[in-house]
């Protein structure tokens, strides 16, 4: 008899091969065919400054999608467009089959899009746990008065959400700072708490804006591991902006490259790496 685990999810991935080298990242040749979000012909400008011009690409359900490019290429603007913070002058965004014209960030959040920020945006005076609990706010149904009473259904609801928050704390291995005020934490941990808060909203699409900026090698490896695990365990689709090329190439299933607000390449890490336009943009040949 055998006790080998073959769960339904793993069996559904036909191309995953055994990895003898013991350093598995995302399983090779993962197949994604359901489009979660489609950007088509998006242009965005602030007065005379063109941030994005005629950018089109898609994000498939379950993949890790990287957006890369030199400084000022329009990467963060792209995330802000997806998350409804900026409204493009031209183009459409199709999310889960619905074409969006204008959307407010809180609507995006309610529809399952969560994000982290390039400059950490946590409540610095609140504990890690409380910050993560704020990520649950959209899921809580009881109003302020019920919450203040902390009785009956409000208490039951609180317990359910607290348990969810505890699972995230366990997942991100931040038990030791559960009750620490976030402002006192080192940078790498604050980034992790921010990821935790985004996860608390149970997003379908997670936008990470430079999740590893300013981290040392070990912190970057930890963060990469968490990103892979989030994608793996919860099936969350992830779009991330990152500067460290080696990490981007290891992590992502597909990469889109922006330069001066235009898309210059789109494809698997290998395809992108071999693309002459990308090499030029990164080596700065054309920019003098």
């Amino acid at each position, binding site marked *: *008899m055998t*006790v*080998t*685990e073959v*769960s339904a*999810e*793993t069996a559904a*991935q036909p191309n*995953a*091969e*055994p*990895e*003898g*080298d*013991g*350093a*598995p990242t*995302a*399983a090779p040749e993962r197949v994604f065919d359901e489009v979660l979000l489609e950007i088509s012909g998006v242009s965005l400008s602030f007065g005379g400054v063109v941030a994005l011009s005629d950018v089109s690409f898609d994000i498939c359900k379950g993949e890790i999608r990287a957006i890369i490019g030199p400084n000022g290429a329009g990467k963060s603007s792209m995330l802000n467009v997806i998350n409804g913070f900026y409204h493009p002058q031209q183009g459409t965004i199709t999310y889960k089959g619905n074409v969006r014209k204008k959307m407010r960030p809180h609507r995006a959040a309610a529809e399952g899009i969560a994000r982290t920020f390039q400059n950490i945006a946590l409540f610095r005076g609140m504990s890690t746990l409380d910050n993560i609990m704020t990520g649950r706010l959209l899921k809580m149904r009881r109003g302020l008065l019920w919450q203040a009473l902390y009785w009956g259904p409000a208490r039951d609801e609180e317990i359910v959400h*607290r*348990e969810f928050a*505890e*699972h995230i*704390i*366990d*997942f991100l*291995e931040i*038990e*030791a700072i*559960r009750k620490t005020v976030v402002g006192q934490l080192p940078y790498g941990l604050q980034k992790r708490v921010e990821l935790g808060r985004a996860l608390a909203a149970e997003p379908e699409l997670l936008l990470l804006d430079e999740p590893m900026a300013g981290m040392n*090698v*070990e912190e970057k*490896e930890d963060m990469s*591991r968490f990103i*892979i*695990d989030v994608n*793996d*365990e919860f099936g969350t689709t992830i779009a991330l902006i990152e500067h460290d090329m080696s990490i981007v190439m290891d992590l992502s299933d597909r990469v889109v490259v922006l330069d001066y607000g235009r898309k210059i390449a789109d494809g698997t890490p290998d395809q992108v790496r071999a693309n002459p336009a990308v090499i030029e943009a990164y080596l700065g040949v054309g920019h003098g």
Partner: protein
Amino acid sequence: MNEGQGAGVAATAATSAPFRPGASVDLEFDTFPKLLKRNAAVRGTRSAMREKDYGIWQSWTWAEVAAEVRAIACGLSVLGLRRGDAVAIIGDNRPRLYWTIAAVQSLGGIPVPMYQDAVADEMKFVLDHAGVRFAVVENQEQVDKLLQVWEDFPQLELVVYDQPRGLRHYRQDFLHDMANVLAAGQKFDSENPSFYDDEVAMGVAGDTAIMLYTSGTTGQPKGVVLTHENIYLTAINAAQQEGLTERDESLAYLPLAWVGDHIFSYAQSYVTGFCVSCPESSDTVLTDLRELGPSYFFAPPPIFENILTTVMIRMEDASALKRKMFSYFMGVARRAGANILDREPVGVVDRLLYWLGGVFVYGPLKNTLGLSRVRICYTAGEAIGPDLFVFYRSIGINMKQLYGSTEASVFITIQPDGEIKPDTVGTPAPGVELKVADDGEVMFRSPGVFKEYFKNPEATAETKTPDGWVHTGDAGLIDEDGHLKIIDRLKDVGRLVDGTLFAPKYIENKLKFFSHIKEVVAFGNQQKFCTVIVNIDLEAVGNWAERGGITYSSYQELAARPQVYDLIQEEIEQMNSELAKEQNLAGSQIHRFLLLHKELDPDDGELTRTRKVRRNFVAEKYSTVIEALYGTADHCQITTEVTFEDGRKGTISADLAIRDVRTVTAGEQLAAE
């Protein structure tokens, strides 16, 4: 073996200590799986184990633990585990790993716990030497390490993991989820209900209960084979001396691979029935300790030192009134606290003040530390600074030193209640015979003496005499009250070229008691004078630097600051003047020192996994530094290799300043007094 205190080498007062007989084997419950069945029957509804998970303490009764162990054992047997097979157990203190130890013992297998923070290469030796067939590990981190070396070990057949997280896409058919093993075990058990009981009944007291690899300050690790009888008798003897009962509580947070944890968190719990709790993670130990308030606590000195350093740092940041109150009542505690704990006569005024201090300072402090309910608090593993020791005792914590080793199943000597001296390690535990050989080496014989070193008869013969006496390798003496005093490792006790005694450990321990100094390595054997390499304590010195407005961005930068050199120099000079007062050791005063640019690290092989300095290795690795210390230059250049947590290597180089230190001669000493 352990290092203890030392204070000069005076003429020995005695060569052997008084003997007290211990318990004998209970024939009905002579193995740990049998003890587990007894506990499930006798105290089935009492808590046996707890673990903090998802922010809440989850607990299991003895009956539940017995059922879990039964299921794991059946599951492992389904996978093919047979009597005599070695099973590696790797991970943090998790209930299922402790249960796996019992499950493997139930089947007559040999549990081999391994250090969870070892890198893959370090695991190779033990995996190979013990001939490990199965590995039961905590999580993906350990699985990855085993996969890295998988090809090298054809005898290693399968790996069971407790936490499935991140392992979903691992396709190897030799990886098994513990949940599935448990389910298969339960199914097998329901089909073969007598299997488990028959297997347990086959075990006898003389069977190997566990194999623990000593971390080895020199050479390759050795696999110490301990039988159920060894562990049972040692555990029960000590438990009886201390009056441990099922109502005690302990926290399991030290490595499973270390003999102390096996005795305190496993054997003694099975023997007396007390509850063992596992912390949420290795980073939350102090918080968990505080929530739990154990009555039975063990920690090596560095942990007590860290706790005290944290307290002191926080006190320095406290308001003036609080600081005043703290220092006043700590003065009272120093004067009266230890005596009150030892039930010695103390004046009425001091008693009253001590009581007040208890209300205002000691009580809240102990509560903050999580030591309010501690009844027995052991420290061992290495020497504890007398001031540190007295600090804890003075605030009413019954801290006691013990002296032990893996080869003794821990206990050789324990300080008996009411007879505590900071510079000795106490009297022999029940059942232990103790003597000091002619060359000054401490030797013992006890029911806990190990069976053998696995596959290493030469080392066994070197360490254990045919009539059962064990060489500890420690130099020591027995004082007039029958207490053992440890001076140093026998082989480390050296001489300066002029013949003066040089006991490096003694110097290092004295220096390490300064809160700014984390680690010290002393040199001097066959040299003209003594020198030291110092590691500063990043937290303590960092805090000091912050208050003094000294900026730094890394350990290396901080350690190179001249102000930090001044600080450490002052402390070394203070120790020199103390050393000058001890006639045997006045010659060991430090003449030159430097602050190392990196912290000594087990990953770089400089410390053992139990954080003891590997002296010879350090001497070799930093030979250029040592040469410079004995030269005349005031700085030296060094490049060293460092290993990152993921096993990759890099190099760092630095230019280290060397300072001369003022020493005190006998004449000056007299003039000063």
